[in-house]
């Protein structure tokens, strides 16, 4: 059996689903971020697979941009989570409820 584009799309969909489950079930902000990284990488697999089977390179360039953005986003998110941790020594997403109503 040869590996075709649908195998890659299936892998990406599974990875995306795992990411979504992680995001929904994790209460720790860092855990949520890890789920988001899985979702982003599912998109990357899609891009690289499309590039591989259509012959163009632009999707691979898109994927490289996504990797860079993901790193920047993670850096900012971790800095913000750290700042919150200093205020309340706790990074539980559910317990961040000073702002509500």
């Amino acid at each position, binding site marked *: 059996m040869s590996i075709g584009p649908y195998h890659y799309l299936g892998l990406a969909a599974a990875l995306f689903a795992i990411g979504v489950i992680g995001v929904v079930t994790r209460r720790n902000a860092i855990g949520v971020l890890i789920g988001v990284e899985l979702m982003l990488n599912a*998109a990357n697999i*899609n891009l690289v697979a499309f590039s591989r089977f259509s012959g163009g390179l632009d*999707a691979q360039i898109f994927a490289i*941009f996504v990797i860079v953005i993901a790193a920047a986003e993670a850096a900012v998110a971790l800095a*913000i989570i750290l700042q919150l941790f200093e205020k309340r020594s706790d990074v539980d997403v559910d317990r*961040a409820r000073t702002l509500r*109503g």
Partner: protein
Amino acid sequence: MLLAQSWIPDLSAIFTQFAAEAVLCLAIPVIILADVFAGPARREKVAGLIGMGALVLAFVLALIQPADGVMLTKLLRADGLAKAFRLIAIATGVIAAVGAMRGEITKARTEFYVCLLGAVVGACLTAAANDLAMLYLAIETLSIAGYLLAGFRKDNAKSAEAAMKYVIFGAIASAIMLYGMTLVYGFAGTSTIATPEGMTYASIASEAATAAMSPAFLIAVVLVFAGLAYKIAAAPFQFWCPDVYEGAPTSVAAFLAVASKGAGFAVILRFFSAVTSGGDMTETLQAVLLIVALVTMTIGNLAALRQNNAKRLLAYSAIAHAGYLLVGVAVTNQAGATAVVFYMMVYLFMTLGAFYMVGIVERQTGRTDIDAYTGLGFRAPMFAACLAICLISLTGLPPTAGFPGKFFLFQQVFAHAGEQQSSLFFWGGVIGLLNGVISLGYYTRFLKVMYLCDRDQIPTGSFAFGGIDRGMVLMLTAPVLVLGIAFQGLRELADTLAKGIF
């Protein structure tokens, strides 16, 4: 040699069409370097000077930049829509910077300006993006700078919580959007969004117009819309909005409410014009957009009714307005796009005005609850009158600019309902108008505490309202009144700027 000849004219042309963005990008390293060399005493002053100078210069350049829509690259489009939302983003940046410098941001102004300029550049490029990769890059530039701005009051636990909520939910929404984008790319075989007139290359618009699209493509479009709905605070991705606006500095909340939302709407107009260009899913997508719009405005208006915090109230009002604007997108035609651009320009003045005045009250009293406005109609008549004008305009009543704005939006809905014999759009229009009545309920609460309070409840003590504050407020409020009566010119302008989107 050949390469040099073919590239140099291209680059110079890019700089004429994107001069405003170029100035803002250049200003960022200049501010950082100036901060190093200025020394601790003059640091804040130098940052403010360069930052504000760059924003004002960019605004002037954006005014005179051509909007002929000639494409130099497939990635960006310098058309009327890009020009309209670029002007909105830069103007919002200027006003947010003035508001922040009036006392909210006293420390680390260099960092503030770097983040603000980054966010403005992101918003400008988002409005001009014509390629999914460029779009993702621009939206993330706007978002990441926005996350930092929301958490800028480092000594404040609320600000940290607001930034955390914004970044976590923002990261989730953008990951969903990106996954949708890759699927759209896979279906269309290209990441270019639209093919402008006179060009021949393939784009999502040209593919969607010719090929029959599978339901899976619809899912991909909805995934992209989920990420964009987060940016404009539309249901079901609106829950972050009140928390973030309450915790963020007021001027940053104003920036998110206008520039960030405006950029989101520019993309939504572009993207939906591409995916509804003649395919068989157009009606389904119109229905999806209309239902999201109605749910958004109803949630926003009903939740605002029980708010006592002025910033949260304005946040729910911003959610409701995302709903009104989406109604104009849902009809997916030229007249709808014109109505959206018109309303966005009016929304700029009235929302920034309201946020600026909430910021003034917050500075003077340290409070954001509605009781802090008690008796302002007598203590500061000018201030109260300006706030009243902005709030009446947000409700959409004449003689303010909100009235023609809402009129044009809902006119399109009923026109569409008549053309398509669509009862969904007819009842959608009716629900939208009823929402206007609900919104009267909470905007008038401000008027009630300002004007109809007991004389003995009025706090003594003076309310300072002068100098820069008075100038800014008058500058933002006067257009709301003038455009409410003489709106024909702005309507024609909106028509020119929105040309060629659908």
